[in-house]
Structures are given as C-alpha cells and as structure tokens.
C-alpha cells in the first residue's frame, strides 16, 4: 500500500516535470522573450543587459531549473497582453470557473446516477429507452451547440435567463461568489447545464451498465429469495457495488469539466480562467498559456492521485488483494 502510494506520487511528479518542460519551452522558443519585454526603442546594450538579467545566457538545464523555482512560487511573469502579473489575473478569474465546475459536476453526478438507476431498473420501459436514445444524440452534440440551443430557447425566445456573464457577484475579499445574489444564480443555470450535460450522459450510461451487471449477480438473487424489498435491494445492495467505477470516472471527468469549461465560458462569456486561456491563445499571450497549462496539470494530476487513493478507501477487496500478494 505504502509502496504503491510512493510510486504513484513519484509518477505524478514526473508528469508535472514534463509538463513544466513544455511550458518552459513555450517561453523559450515561441517568440523572443526579450523582444516581447522591451519596447521599440532599445539598444543592443539594453538587450544584452536584459538577457543577462533574465538569465538567458545560461545553459538550458539551469534555465529550466530557474523556471521551475519560479513556477513553484506561482511566478509566471507579466501577461504580454494585459501587462499585469499572470498569477494575479489567474487568482482573480479562478473563483468563477470553480463555481461553474462545482455546480455542473453536481448536476452531472446527481442527474447521472438517478437516470442511470432508473434506466437500469426499468430496462424495458418506454421512458428508459427514450432516455438512452437521447443520450446517444447528446454524446454526438458538440458542447457549444448545446449552449447555443439553450441560449436560443431560454434567453432569446422565453427571455427567462441571461445569456452571458456572471450576474452580480459578491466580493468576499479573496473570493468572488455568484451564489449569494439572485442574478448570479440565474446566470449560473444555463452554463452549468451546458457543461454538465455531456458528463451526465457519460455517468448515466456507466451507472446503467454497472447496475445491470450487478443485478445479475448471485447475491442479488439470494437477496430476492430472502424476500428483501425491491427498494432495499436496488439501493442498499446493488447501488453500493456500482459506485467504485462511478467514482473513478467522475473523478477523472472533474478534470475534463475544468478543460471543457473553456468552451462553455466562451459561449456564455463567463469571466473565468477558460475564457482567459482562449483569449491568450488568440493573442499568443505565452505567459498566460504556460501558467494555465501548469495550473490545470497540477489539478489533473492531483485529482488522478486522489481518485487512486480513494480506491483503497472504498473497495476493501483491493486492500485484501494487496496484503495477500505481499
């Protein structure tokens, strides 16, 4: 168990180092950093001095090490476009994205598990079949089209919900939240559904498959034979055993929710880090791109690690296997 954990942590560090190398190479080789920092009026001496100041005359490995040192402290330099420290901009934008990801994650999880159980129990029902067919179309539908359809129906035609922005936000000093105002909550509904829908179909199909598998098992048959109520069989016996893969997938999907937030944030002009990133790509704002890459990879790798650890907490069989093996 301990050896496994140490190996996983070690692997994660390697992944982060590789991503760091990619981010560093972007700084170093895409455009000339000196060129980007000095204005039109510069002399050769200026260039030389800045080169020395930035440590660009050192060899590659030393430069990479410096970059990592800075990155760990959250220092990614100034945004080429806004001229402010990248770290400040990211911290300012992060709450919007995290709130959006949290709500859509909850929608996906709750909706996905509920629909998954429903379609598994009423396998032959008309409603269940309709839901399954609908989910197939939902998987083929690009995220941005879902967003556009929702805007068309609920903002343009019905006029119920806002089509862009975050509404009024409350500033808590270190965090801005849209949860406390009516307009903030209203603005959250459409983006959260857009972002959560795809993950919801994934979780639903997974829960359904797992549930059908478990319901065929002998212990379920014996539970039926013992006369335990249907409800209790479905929720206490069957559901519990479908949760391990569901938690894995949900955990891994959390990462892609943050990545797919880029698309949703662009459709709804939601002022989060995703919109920041896409603007950075459009204007080739390398520091912002690199910082976003590092931030998101720390999240991804962290989530992967936690999911792996959760395995042990949830599934006792794994613990027994490990002990028996050694």
């Amino acid at each position, binding site marked *: 168990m301990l050896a496994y954990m140490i190996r996983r942590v070690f692997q994660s560090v390697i992944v982060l180092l590789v991503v760091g190398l990619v981010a560093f190479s972007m700084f170093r080789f895409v455009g000339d950093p000196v060129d980007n920092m000095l204005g039109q009026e510069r002399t050769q001496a200026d260039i030389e001095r800045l080169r020395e100041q930035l440590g660009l005359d050192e060899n590659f490995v030393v430069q990479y090490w410096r970059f990592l040192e800075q990155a760990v402290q959250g220092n990614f330099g100034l945004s080429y476009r806004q001229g402010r420290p990248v770290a400040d901009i990211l911290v300012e934008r992060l709450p919007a994205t995290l709130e959006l990801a949290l709500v859509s994650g909850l929608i996906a999880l709750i909706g996905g598990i509920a629909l998954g159980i429903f379609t598994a129990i009423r396998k032959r029902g008309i409603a269940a079949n309709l839901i399954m067919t609908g989910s197939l179309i939902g998987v083929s539908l690009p995220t941005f089209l879902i967003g556009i359809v929702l805007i*068309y129906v609920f903002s343009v035609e019905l006029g119920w919900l806002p089509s862009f922005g975050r509404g009024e936000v409350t500033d808590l000093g270190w965090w801005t939240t849209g949860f406390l105002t009516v307009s903030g909550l209203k603005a959250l509904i459409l983006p959260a559904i857009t972002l959560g829908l795809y993950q919801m179909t994934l979780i639903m199909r997974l829960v359904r498959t797992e549930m059908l598998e478990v319901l065929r098992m002998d212990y379920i048959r014996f539970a039926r034979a013992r006369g335990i109520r249907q409800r209790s069989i479905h929720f206490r016996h069957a559901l519990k055993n479908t949760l391990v893969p569901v938690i894995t997938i949900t955990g891994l999907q959390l990462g892609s929710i943050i*990545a797919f937030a880029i698309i949703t944030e662009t459709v709804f002009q939601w002022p989060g880090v995703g919109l920041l990133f896409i603007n950075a790509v459009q204007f080739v704002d390398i520091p912002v791109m690199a910082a976003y890459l590092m931030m998101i*990879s720390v999240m991804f790798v962290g989530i992967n690690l936690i999911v792996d650890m959760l395995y042990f907490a949830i599934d006792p069989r794994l613990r027994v296997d490990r002990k028996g093996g050694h």
Partner: protein
Amino acid sequence: MSDISTKPPSRMRSIWDSDLAYSFRRSPVALVSALVVLVLVLCAVFAAFLAPHDPFNPATLNLMNGFTPPNTNNAFTGDYFVLGTDDQGRDVLSTILYGMRISLFVGFAAVLLAMILGVFLGLLAGYAGGWTDTVIMRVADVQLTFPAILVAMLIFGIAKGITPPEYRDQMAIWVLVLAIGLSDWVQFARVVRGATLVEKNKEYVQAAKLIGRSPLAIMIKHILPNVLNPVLVIATISLALAIIAEATLSFLGVGAPPTKPSLGTLIRIGQEFMFSGEWWILFFPAATLLALALSINLLGDWLRDALNPRLR
C-alpha cells in the same frame, strides 16, 4: 453437375458476400448514416459545381442582398436564395458547401496524420519493446492525462506563435490539421501496441525473422495487416471527433479564419445574429454539422459492433 463452377468468385462478389457487407445490408441505421455521409461528402467535394453563388468572390457579392430570409427573393435586388444570406449578402447554402469542404478536409487529414503517427509508434513500441516502448507509452500516458481538445488548443497557440503574422490566415488550416492530428494519436498507438504484442510471438513472425527480413519489413508487411481491424474502427470514431474538434476550435476563434470559414466559423458568425432574429445564418450550418457528426458516429458504432466477433 456442370453448373458447379470451380472458378473462384469474382472480387466484387466476395466483398458482397463478406460478413461485414452482410451486416451492413441488414442494418438500417448503418445504411441511412452511410447514405447521409456519402451525400454530404459528395456535396463538399463538388461544392464548386453545386454552389449557386461564389461566396468568397467580392466581385459577385452585393451588400444589398444582406439578411435575405430563406426561400425568398431579396426586396431590393430580386435575387433568390434558398437558405437566405448572411450580413454581407453571402449565400448561406454556398458558404455551407464550401465550409463543409474545409471541415471534412481538416477532419480526414487530421485523422490520417493521427493514424499514421499512432500506428507507426504503436508498432514500434510493441515490436521493439524495452526502453523504446517505455518512452513512447509514457509520453502517451502524459498526453492522455489531458483532454484532446486542450492539447489541440495548445498546439494551435504555439504554432500560431511560430508562424509569422502575415501567413497566419493561410496556414490556419494546416495548423488545425497538425493540432488535431497530434492530439489524437494516442488511441491508435495504444491499440496497435497491444495487438502487436500478441502478434509478434506468432509463428509467421518467427518465420519471417528466420528468413532474414528486416524488422521494418516485418512490422509493416506482416504485422500491420493483422492489426488493422481495430484501427479502422478507431479511425471512424476519430473522424467524427476530429470534425467536432475542428468545429469547436473554429467556433472559439482559434481555428479556420473568417476568410476561409469552416462550419464552426460559420456558426461563430451566425451566433452574433441569433438575438436579432436572423436565425437562418446560425441554424443551417449548425444542422449540417450535427447531421455530419451524428451519422459518422452512428457508422462508427455499427462498425465497432460488426467487427467485434464476441457480439455476433
């Protein structure tokens, strides 16, 4: 007894009689989606002949034709447009036909790139083993940690930073192919590597080694044909994903430029007119994209089931 022919059946006949073709004839979903894909691809290929107008030639454009609703004659010029026009008076049907050509081109080219790269690296990793295998599969693992669309955006951003500004619009299509292709090779590599590990211990490979064929020849001439089935399935599904990825990138403004719009760019343009009531500028490109992606997806699903012997 003379009607029993000893002649081998013709090539066409043996294709028609194959399991795959039989399953295809029996599946209405596969037939319909194949038909839709075929029609759309033909429309895209022959866009220059089918399009009623030339939407990218400023000489034939008339701003007076702007915002003509579908299936009406323009109030000022009297020109007729089946699917209406956009703000600059470009015929929506024609822009869709040309746009689909770009979308399909990027999709096919990107999948081809991903396939060649992935199959080659997968064969190499599986056949060579050792540290070659370790390095290739580690890189694959790291890349798989990130969603493909994010990787594609990153590659697009870097490539944009490297190309000089005056070439950016021209290069955009190729940059898209590169970005989507490089973001998608891992799937191919993993499957091919797995199949290669099984194949390389079989007798025909041992025999080929014995007669002194070079490793490259063994990989490409002997192993490759035996691992192609799953590659075909992944390629079909990848094609749908690549077309959606292209549309997404273009929609986000990091793809095909407005001077050479793909379906995604057209949707981006159309979205601006959603609130003012010119729904057709958005609706028709979006519907086309949906039809394309959905039918390729369904075709891929069918192919996966048909080629999987366990499901028969």
